[in-house]
């Protein structure tokens, strides 16, 4: 036997964690979608029945990924990428409008969201680009092109009115950071995030006043350093402009539902009224779970459809309510285990392509986890993205399976993947 065989080197820890998460996911979808008033009707008419079909399809796809030669992914990265970009654009024009977004493509009775598949395609393309022989990771141009690779699909997805899915692509900054992209940008990004939140929460003139005082203080302390004074002045002007811009965008550019979500997150009750309903219900459902939960199918809040989107975006509520703190923590730790395993796997790759791809996988899963669970427990604004492997939804189930199994394939073949 060839010791380079895919089958001998499969990472069973990742596969095991994947299978456990998929199982937890299906049980949760069953619990959330279980309608005790209506058990009549075909199994496959219910969300849990359909989810099982998707799990089956995902299994077949996963197997196919393991069988296909790894060159298929490395060599054809740009092809995948290009195809997905075309599909993303196509969705805007040929796709129907589902809940205000133009992100779906319908073929016969089959519907899917190219945005879900854009994630792994972009990961492949980014890995491909950054692992090319002639690439100098210290050059600004390199990072300019790298950022363009993942900002392009992001922009198209924003045009599809799927801001939530688009936001996922920002995680590529973190991936880039791992491979040499300046940490300063991440800090600046964080600073801007804080500024935006402050600008929305407080009066813009107060913030500018405080920024001014801070700048004056800095200038006074560093009065001998001319460069520092100039930078401080520049930062002040830029951040003041940012605060004003944020305010302007919030007031004049944003659509009502986007404003509402921001209001909910910031807890501005006056503008909120019913919009905070989802989050409050979600928090009540999770909070009422207590230490060990109410038990399988015993969650009253998730059962009676208090929490909207409870099989997809708010699936974590069912887990929180029915299995309590113990169950939720176990789920989070399983995810953490998977993430750390992926990082470990990433670091053992010889090929830079595989390594970058692995970080992209970890980043995407992490970002979904962070936003999705963060939103159900009220730490993050409501952004409708699914919980990987758990939430109901064919596209996301399939996309995450592909994402992970390409990594498993690359890892299994790590001895033969050179670039």
């Amino acid at each position, binding site marked *: 036997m060839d010791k380079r065989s895919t089958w001998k080197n499969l990472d069973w820890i990742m596969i095991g964690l994947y299978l456990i998460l998929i199982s937890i996911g299906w049980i949760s979808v069953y619990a959330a979608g279980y309608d005790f*008033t209506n058990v009549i009707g075909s199994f496959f008419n219910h969300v849990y029945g359909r989810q099982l079909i998707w799990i089956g399809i995902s299994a077949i796809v996963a197997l196919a990924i393991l069988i296909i030669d790894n060159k298929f992914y490395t060599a054809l990265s740009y092809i995948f990428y290009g195809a997905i970009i075309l599909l993303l654009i196509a969705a805007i024009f040929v796709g129907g409008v589902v809940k205000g977004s133009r992100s779906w493509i319908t073929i016969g009775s089959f519907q899917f969201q190219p945005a879900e598949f854009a994630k792994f395609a972009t990961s492949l393309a980014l890995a491909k680009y950054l692992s090319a022989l002639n690439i100098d990771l210290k050059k600004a141009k390199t990072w300019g092109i790298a950022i363009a690779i993942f900002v392009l699909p992001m922009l198209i997805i924003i045009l599809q009115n799927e801001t939530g899915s688009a936001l996922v692509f920002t995680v590529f900054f973190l991936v880039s950071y791992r491979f*040499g992209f300046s940490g300063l940008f991440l800090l600046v990004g964080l600073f801007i995030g804080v500024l935006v939140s402050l600008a929305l929460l407080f009066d813009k003139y107060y913030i500018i006043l405080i920024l001014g005082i801070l700048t004056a203080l800095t200038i006074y302390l560093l009065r001998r350093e001319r460069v520092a004074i100039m930078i401080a002045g520049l930062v002040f002007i830029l951040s003041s402009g940012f605060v004003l811009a944020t305010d302007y965008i919030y007031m004049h550019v944003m659509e009502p539902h986007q404003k509402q979500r921001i209001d909910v997150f910031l807890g501005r009750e006056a503008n909120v009224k019913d919009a905070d309903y989802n989050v*409050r219900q979600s928090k*009540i459902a999770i*909070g*009422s779970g207590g230490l060990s939960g109410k038990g399988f199918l015993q969650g009253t809040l998730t059962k009676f459809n208090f929490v909207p989107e409870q099989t997809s975006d708010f699936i974590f509520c069912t887990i929180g309510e029915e299995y*309590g*703190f113990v169950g939720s923590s176990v789920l989070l730790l399983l995810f953490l285990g998977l993430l*750390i395993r992926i*990082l470990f796997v990433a670091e053992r790759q010889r090929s830079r392509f595989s390594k970058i791809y692995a970080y992209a996988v970890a980043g995407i899963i992490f970002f979904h986890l962070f936003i999705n669970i963060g939103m159900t427990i009220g730490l993050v604004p409501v952004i409708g993205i699914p919980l990987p492997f758990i939430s109901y939804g064919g596209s996301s189930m399939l996309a995450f399976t592909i994402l992970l199994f390409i990594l498993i394939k690359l890892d299994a073949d790590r001895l033969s993947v050179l670039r």
Partner: protein
Amino acid sequence: MDLFQSRRWVIQGAFILVILVFILRLFYMQVVDENYKQLANSNSLRRITSYPARGLVYDRKQRLILYNKAEYDLMVIPLQVSPFDTTELARLLDISVDDIRKTLVKARKTSPYKPYLFQKGIQADQFQSVRESLFQFPGFYSQVRTVRSYPFMAAAHVLGYIGEVSPKQIERLGGYYKQGDYIGITGIEESYEDILRGNKGVRYMLVDVNNREQGSFAEGKYDTIASPGLNLTSSIDIELQQYGEKLMQNKIGSIVAIEPSTGEVLAMVSSPSYDPSLLSGKDRGKNFKMLYADPNKPLFNRAIKAPYPPGSTFKPLMAAIGMQEKVIQPWAPFSMCHGGINIGSLHIGCHAHGGIPNVCVAIAVSCNGYFANYFREVVDNRSRYKNIAEGLDAWNGYLKRFGLGIKTGIDLPNEGYGFAPDSKYYTKRYKTADWRSSMIVSIGFGQGELSATPLQIANMMCSFANRGYWFTPHLVKQIQNDSTILKERIQRNDTGLDTAICNIVVKGMEDVVEAGTARIAKIPGITICGKTGTAQNPHGKDHSLFACFAPKDNPKIVLAVIVENSGFGATWAAPIASLMIEKFMNDSIADNRKYLEQRMFDGNLLKPTP
């Protein structure tokens, strides 16, 4: 080769940090903070019970005597209260600002989430203005409640009242009742509870954290519609009832009026009575305490519960028994009584009366000696009964067939038995079977251990009015859409008495009013047959009794009137009965009898309250 190896740890650290923050947050939400559990409970599904309208009650002439009136409760959920104009709310509710503050503090202490009863029993007219301004008071909302209302303010004992079901009842009755539900407590309200109450409906609503209804659950698949209670038609003539209550004002006692041909109760007065609306509505608790503490016991329904010695009103029955037992020869004179008779060492006192040529006169003049004598002959009739025990039990059998010593079966709860003694009782009492008729002779003229409720006395009179039988007395003559229940309930009870004997007794009772002890009861144009009674009792002055029916042929009304501690039967009971008859038969009181009516209205026999 990899210059940025260390950044691996930054990323891994970020992952771990976020997961840790999430776990801490979850620990706080799920384990530490109890608020979510509270909210979850008031969240979820809400069962909203819709209470059906309780059935109405009409009198025999289809006048509405008991209906439902809306009252409003103002509720508050403390958590939702935001600063409001307390003076305005105080003005609307007619309470002080201080009261508002105190109640709010109490509500908050009870639970900030749960609805708290802020002010109960707001009348519809006052509530109108409250409702219009309610939007100014966030956290407050209203709940409508119906209370029973009594347009005639009469027949309290007959109608009864409703109140919150007790924990014991909830357990005993199982299933239907929940805490806070109302249930009939006495009177028709209790005995016809199942019919009057209807059936509750339940709606399942989804309710959010702010107690706002989010719509019905499962499109109302599980909702049940409340079915209203059925209406009743009572046999009561509410005007006659009111009139009886007025005649009995400031007196203690009772009036029972029955239509003998059906057993329908026309009026049932227990005095002192009370305004039934006192036990309906917001001050029910307070009023109940007040009525309960009253030494004259207004809550006690004397008409069906109080055992009185029937006194001379028993004599017609004694006469009938004597004749049926063939110890009384109706037309034989009786000459033993000269101001009383002596039985051994015992002297039975009697009042001055002329000679007694026949049984009719004995009844008319109410001769104690006559009935004492024949009581002994009945029970000591050794040719018929081998011992006195058998003799007395035969006598007791007659009483039972006349509804004495047993429940008549009226459709009211807690009917009293009265007492008709039998041989077992005396054997126990004298601790020997060797007791004599001379020892118990006073029961032969309605004294001694014998006792009967006013209802039983009236019912006994029904058998004479009907010449031999009685119907189960009842207060409800019709249930909306349903006649089977009542048909099963109301039975004809035969006394086994010969019609001829009855006619002789009736003749005697006619003489009572025409020429005997109750001439005062005479009404021109109406032949009344009756019997006065003056019952000795250990509580003071004699009870005044009168039992009668009218007219003699084809009687329309039977009456038993008892006025406690007021003296001779003829003084109070007979005039009251005769006024009742006149009111019932003629609808009004003749001018020349107005003085009598006035005297009855004015008569105050209550002990002055210390």
